């Protein structure tokens, strides 16, 4: 796979300033994020850690343009995205972002190969045979070369998460966002998936932001960002 983007690896590819977000309705509304600022550079791995409810995932969804902040700004590759409309944010997700979730979210009616090809089909950058070759190569890189034609529900949990990683890398995104990517896996699979995720992203020059409860995995990242009550502690 070719490295993402053409900018130097040290440039911040993802940046946010003074992000605020409240969730819930009426009296149950909670101020989850209270002015978070953050920057991520290519080729570096960031781990967000903290107790449940501290705002890690909320921040990740905001950074991934899956949610809109109440206040504050987000820049992706130098372009301000936080106030853009849904169509622009959707297009940016397609071009710049890859997601890995705790529950892999494979489309179970599709094979591993087809799942990996789905983002490429939407982006439309490659032709059909090129997309197939890329999908095969990505699945091979996560150790699933022999299982490309298995349906999602014919794969184990660890295998499904590896397909999800391959899918997240399919469009050569500059940013990879992972929400508890190993939270649903045993120790052996956790280590393997984490190594794959960080190894491939570093090799491709992608910024990785991982939300995790696992202190061992967090310790293996380039940066650890502890969070509490909607703010980074450092």
């Amino acid at each position, binding site marked *: 796979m070719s490295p993402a983007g053409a900018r130097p690896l040290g440039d911040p590819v993802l940046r946010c300033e003074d992000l605020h977000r409240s*969730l819930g309705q009426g009296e149950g509304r909670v101020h989850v994020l209270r002015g978070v600022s953050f920057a991520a550079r290519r080729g570096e791995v960031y781990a967000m850690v903290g107790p449940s409810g501290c705002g890690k995932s*909320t921040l990740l969804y905001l950074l991934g343009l899956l949610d809109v902040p109440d206040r504050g700004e987000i820049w992706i590759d130098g372009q301000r995205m936080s106030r853009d409309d849904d169509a622009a944010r*959707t297009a940016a997700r397609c071009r710049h972002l890859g*997601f890995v979730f705790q529950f892999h*979210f494979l489309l179970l*009616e599709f094979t591993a190969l087809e799942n990996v090809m*789905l*983002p490429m089909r939407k*982006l439309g950058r490659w032709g059909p045979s090129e997309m197939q070759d890329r999908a095969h190569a990505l699945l091979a890189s996560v150790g699933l070369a022999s299982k490309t034609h298995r349906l999602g529900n014919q794969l184990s949990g660890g295998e499904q998460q590896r397909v999800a990683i391959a899918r997240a890398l399919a469009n050569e995104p500059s940013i990879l966002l992972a929400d508890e990517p190993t939270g649903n896996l045993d120790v052996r699979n956790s280590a393997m998936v984490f190594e794959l995720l960080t190894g491939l992203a570093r090799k491709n020059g992608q910024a990785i932001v991982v939300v995790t409860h696992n202190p061992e995995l967090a310790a293996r990242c380039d940066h650890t960002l502890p969070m509490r009550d909607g703010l980074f502690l450092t």
Partner: protein
Amino acid sequence: MSTNLRIALRFLTARRKAMVMSLACITLGVGLFVVTQATTTGFERFFIKTIVGTNGAIRIEDRIQETLRTMEAERGSDASGFVVEVKEGRKYIQGIQDPALLIAAVQRFANVSGTSEVLYGSVEMRSSFKNEAARVYGIHLDDHLQVSDLGRQIVRGDLADFRLTPAGTLVGIKLAERLQLEVGDSFQLQAGGEVRRYRVSAIFETGVGDIDKDRLFLHLGEARSLLRRPTGASFIQVNVVDRDRATQDAAHMEAVLGHSASSWQERERTWLDVFRALRLSTSITVSVFTLIAGIAMYNTLALVVMEKTKDIAILRSMGYTRRDVTRIFLWQAAMVLAAGAVLGCGLGAGVTYGVSLMRIRIRGIFTADHFIVAWSVWHYLAAVAISVVMVMAASLLPARRAARLEPGDIIRGTAQ
């Protein structure tokens, strides 16, 4: 194949039984709509063919005479104007005084393909069995064959015999049965105190009970002599090339010729309204199936949306737009709809063919010995159009709901 269509195709398998149920409803809705339209339209067309073939497309009868008119004198520069307002009216003078002149005028209308001068009157018909009241129609045979299906309505005997026999008659089948007359039998007609003897040349059956029970045809000259009407005619029967234009032509003739003219649509308005009401009511009844198909599709897609919220979220996170999501769900509905429409059209055609073979004896307003069906592509197009409107309208709601889902909410687990 587009990506959205590919995804829709796979999602179809998520609720296979529910989709099959929707498919069955669409198939039934389309099929039954086609069958009911084919049968009601078939009988209606046959009725129209019968009445146009018997009484003609247009009938020109009494002369219209304007009676009183509103008069108005224009106000001049040196005199005052005045207006005499009266209730305007028209008087009908029975029959046609100069049929040849009128026929010459009628034949100048572009849509007219034939005219027949007819003189009719009431007579008493006597056979050796009994007497019956009847109506004599005096015609020139060749003229009348141009404006009616009389030639095809002969069930016994021969028109050639009528043509060659001055005292020959064509007798309605029910009238012949009542008087126990057969081809070649003699009978008497009494009109105005005079009695004459005639012979049955042929027996005809129009299928219209009221006509077959009291109508008999004579040569026009013989009818004039019997009814003592040496000149004039009762009406002119007119045939036209495009019978659907008969109403406009009749109105035009009435205005130009000064005689009342009635089209077949006007004369048979009651029956035509009955057929129209029947067709509409059966359409509404069978459209219930399509409505059920729409509701079934709505339910199925709503369930699929609920089941696939996470798939929707992941597709949205990959860059699939709200429009893509709407299309994925509308494609599912469209695929089931297309399959249902094809199967429904096949079912409709098959059942229509089966029905056309069914025997049924109908007498009264027309004569039929089996179900009459009409084959028209419009029935199929209408059935498909109704199902498209109902199913796609019902599918739009869940599809739009799917598109409105926020991926962040779904992944966080708070999507409603």
